[in-house]
């Protein structure tokens, strides 16, 4: 049986411009979560829940880390919750990044943009544990928006790209990643235009993309969050079949 869980807020910290990291306690979600999955959070006086990816878990402490950008009412409210608040959550929801086929020694490429970066951090640390080496290319709008750089550096070679060049390479992640390198596959999460550009540039490489869409139920029952796919059953649900899909399977 799936359950509605209570996430107890342990710490809330501003990591970058409009970017907040929450650490929450819940043994069940901490244990169950896989990289790429999300929690669906209820907020007082809001009809719809807010989906947020899991950025990290600490199973010994029984905690889950979320990192989000303040873009509207709900995220503003989330950012303002005092430590100790219990947040009503569904999750972990969806299917994470498939990594079972990878072999020790393999090297993979992670391409993240903005708030698409957090789930990749969870993925990177999981891969590291399995002896798989990661190369990361992380894109941000500007220096003030950059976060998790040091954490990624610890897990492997990491390049930062900012659109305005105020930090790291100037431009887009696709200016930095190469069609051919030693990596066996790639994993990407970020804004739709970035995912499309990455999918195009790395079309000869196997890859997996994580998508966002406005959601209702978050569990597969309302058909709000669909994405067109190449199979003739066409539309798939991001909240249930995704949010991660094979780059080869979806139409952007």
């Amino acid at each position, binding site marked *: *049986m*799936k*359950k*509605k869980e209570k996430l107890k807020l342990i710490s809330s910290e501003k990591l970058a411009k409009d970017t907040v990291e929450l650490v929450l306690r819940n043994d069940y979600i901490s244990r169950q979560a896989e990289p790429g999955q999300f929690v669906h959070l*209820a907020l007082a*006086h*809001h*009809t*719809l*829940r807010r989906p947020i990816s899991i950025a990290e878990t600490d199973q010994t402490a029984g905690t889950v880390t979320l990192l989000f950008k303040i873009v509207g009412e709900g995220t503003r409210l989330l950012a303002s919750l005092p430590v100790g608040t219990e947040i009503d959550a*569904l999750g972990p929801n969806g299917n994470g990044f498939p990594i079972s086929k990878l072999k020790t020694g393999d090297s993979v490429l992670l391409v993240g943009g903005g708030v698409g970066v957090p789930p990749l951090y969870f993925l990177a640390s999981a891969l590291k544990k399995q002896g798989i080496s990661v190369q990361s290319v992380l894109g941000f709008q500007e220096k003030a928006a950059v976060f998790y750089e040091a954490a990624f550096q610890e897990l492997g070679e990491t390049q930062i790209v900012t659109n305005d060049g105020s930090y790291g390479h100037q431009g887009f992640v696709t200016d930095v990643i190469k069609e051919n390198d030693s990596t066996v596959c790639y994993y990407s999460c970020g804004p739709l235009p970035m995912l499309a550009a990455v999918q195009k540039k790395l079309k000869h490489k196997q890859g997996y993309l994580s998508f966002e*869409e*406005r*959601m*209702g*139920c*978050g*569990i*597969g*029952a*309302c*058909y*709000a*969050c*669909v*994405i067109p796919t190449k199979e003739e059953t*066409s*539309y798939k649900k991001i909240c*249930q079949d995704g949010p991660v899909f094979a780059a080869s399977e979806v139409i952007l």
Partner: protein
Amino acid sequence: MIDLSVDLPGLSMKNPVMPASGCFSFGREYSEFYNLNKLGAVIMKAATGNERQGNPTPRVAETASGMLNAIGLQNPGVEKIVETEVPFLAQYAVPIIANVAGSTIEEYEKVATVLNKSANIAAIELNISCPNVKEGGIQFGTNPSMAKEVTRRVKAISRFPVYVKLSPNVTNIVEMAKAIEEAGADGITMINTLTGMKIDLATKQPLIANKTGGLSGAAVQPIAIRMIYEVSQAVSLPIIGMGGIETAEDVLEFLLAGADAVAIGTANFNNPLVCPEVIADLPEVLKQYGFSSVKEAVGKAHSV
């Protein structure tokens, strides 16, 4: 001991609460949260003649105490639903109501014909809030004669009791109810969503890809209550009421207004357990307000 049971055409229910069409898919997802046997009935997602892809995204938007949706009737088609979805729900001891949609009367007839083959359906709900492509896209549900015609034709074919789902986007809801009563409907479900729109200030365009969407949730409850109060006193058909229900107190308000049973839609998204929780709370709430059964409360708000 409070009696929650309700008996309506084709539906003998242990309690008056069921999930509303389109908010519960075909039950699989919610069956992972609780035992669906707790429900009074289940209304399935809309079925059309053939598979439908539905609308582009975004398909939903949040509004004050409500939401807009424009899913566009995405569904695998009635044949597939009868083959793969109905059997799943049939495992539960809960009456199954099939929501029937179409863009021509012929499509409604086709869906009803296919549903006749299923042994496990208890009733059908005619979703007439669909544009009639042959009539320049006027909604069946906003035109009394079109509503009457589609009801009559489906009623002539279906071996199940037919509940017609009324659209609130009309000048005169009583006229619509009388039209489908004359056409032989066995019951009414109401209300469907109100047509609304939200504009995204950033893009300066309607937020929902379909531009307009259907407004649902607590925001519309006063409109649902008013329409049920009017319709229940103008026709003799049983009514399954819906529109913004979130609590057992809300259910009682619908009963007092004249609904015989209720459906819960939008509230499932925020709380997947809302149906069993409301069912669990209902006896205490009925007792608190002096009722010993659901039936007793029905229509009690009507002027005596």
